[in-house]
């Protein structure tokens, strides 16, 4: 279990995170909804070890991670952009983490091959990254993270830069991968629908504070998530559509 206890972060005099507390069970995905500037990215970077917290503790299975460098935490942080390595082809991008661990060639081939098949990228393994579409790049990025079986995956609006259709495909793929790899992940997004589809558990971040919900109803009913406003909007659209005169009449 990942425990985040009283995490605080200030940049000079500006407080970005205040008393952030939550627990993430193994094989669970926590979706955190929040607007830009709410502190989501800072929180993920602190958990990954890319940013130093001003106070608080991060604990994984009873071990405090605060003083460990990012590589020792084994928590992979995925950015909004795929950030593939342009000097490597698709196969080597996915194999990157295994190469760092000096895995033997046979294991690398097996694991990467299986991962590429699972992601539907088998036929693209020799392509360079500039030959891929946005969705394919994001899939390679996923594969690169999942192939090393990280205990926790942190996803910072990974589908934010994709078009609607590709985004939908990636959400479906993520859901499939979540089941297949028993993922433990923290998924941040500013898209309510995405947060609901992806998360086993839901949270909301605002002004550097996080609030976790017991169930979907609580999440939807909280005015802070603005889910009600969204629902009203779509209900209005549906009502307009229902009143729309059909061609037959």
């Amino acid at each position, binding site marked *: 279990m990942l425990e985040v206890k009283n995490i605080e972060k200030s940049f000079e005099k500006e407080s970005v995170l205040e008393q952030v507390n939550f627990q993430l069970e193994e094989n669970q995905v926590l979706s955190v909804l929040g607007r830009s500037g709410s502190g989501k990215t800072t929180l993920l970077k602190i958990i990954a070890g890319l940013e130093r917290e001003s106070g608080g503790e991060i604990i994984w299975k009873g071990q405090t991670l605060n003083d460990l460098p990012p*590589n020792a935490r084994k928590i992979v942080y995925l950015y909004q952009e795929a950030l593939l390595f342009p000097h490597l082809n698709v196969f080597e991008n996915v194999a990157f983490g295994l190469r760092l661990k000096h895995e033997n060639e046979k294991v690398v081939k097996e694991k990467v091959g299986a991962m590429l098949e699972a992601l539907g990228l088998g036929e693209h393994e020799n392509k360079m990254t500039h030959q891929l579409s946005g969705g394919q790049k994001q899939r390679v990025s996923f594969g690169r993270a999942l192939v090393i079986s990280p205990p926790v995956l942190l996803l910072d609006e990974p589908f934010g830069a994709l078009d609607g259709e590709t985004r939908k495909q990636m959400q479906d793929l993520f859901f499939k991968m979540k089941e297949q790899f028993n993922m433990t992940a923290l998924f941040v997004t500013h898209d309510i629908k995405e947060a609901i589809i992806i998360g086993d558990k839901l949270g909301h971040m605002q002004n550097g504070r996080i609030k976790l919900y017991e169930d979907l109803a609580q999440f939807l009913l909280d005015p802070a998530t603005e889910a009600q406003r969204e629902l009203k909007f779509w209900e209005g659209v549906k009502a307009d559509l229902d009143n729309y005169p059909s061609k037959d009449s």
Partner: protein
Amino acid sequence: MKKGPRFFIAIIGLGIAFPFLTLLLFSFMKGWFFPSISPTTWTLDYWIQLFQVEGELLQTSLTSILISIFVAFVSTLLGFFLGKWMATHPWRKWWLLLAYFPFVLSPVILAAGIQFFFIKFGLSGNFLGVLIAQLLIALPYAIIIYNGFWSPSMLDREKLARTLGGTAWQAFWRVSIPLSSGVILVVFFQTFLISWFEYGLTRLIGLGKVKTLTIQVFQFVTETNIFLAALSGVLLVVPPLILLWVNKRFVINQWI
């Protein structure tokens, strides 16, 4: 290729090569007196002198090569890490502005401004002083070029490699170095050329005691020794030509 474009390319090529060919021709002349329309005496003397160990031109060429390689190496290496440091520094814009400063002034004015300090620290008129003086313009140039390379996404790629299990060294060696090889070569070539053709700073700080090939060419020109000036000019053009070829062969082709 059609004949028309080929003809124009040949004309442009000839135009580019013409000054170099003229210099080469002059380096084999000994006399060309009015009203003769072609050189009166030809010689290999200057080229033979060049390859004599005690020859001044050979010494000057070696000094120039040594200075330029040192300046290019230090600028490329230091600029790489300073550029990265600057990229994450809160005062990034101010540091960058400072890097542009040596280029706002002409090198001679810059030299006049710093000469006092060089004299005070015993750096005027010696090899070390010239190296430091040239670094004052080559290093900021390297930093400016690297500034574009150390973009947020480049830094994020390094961080991503860390979260994928890489140590700081692995992230540097397996991500930063392969991705920066092109820009490193460009910076090395450019700073080499800055140093190679540098005149004002080297003249004022070196006080004529440190002779580079560029200074030598000017000296021969002012002495109206056009044939030796031509030979020095040929030597001056050779390293840039080699760099141009290497650049085309290994840098440009790499990215096309």
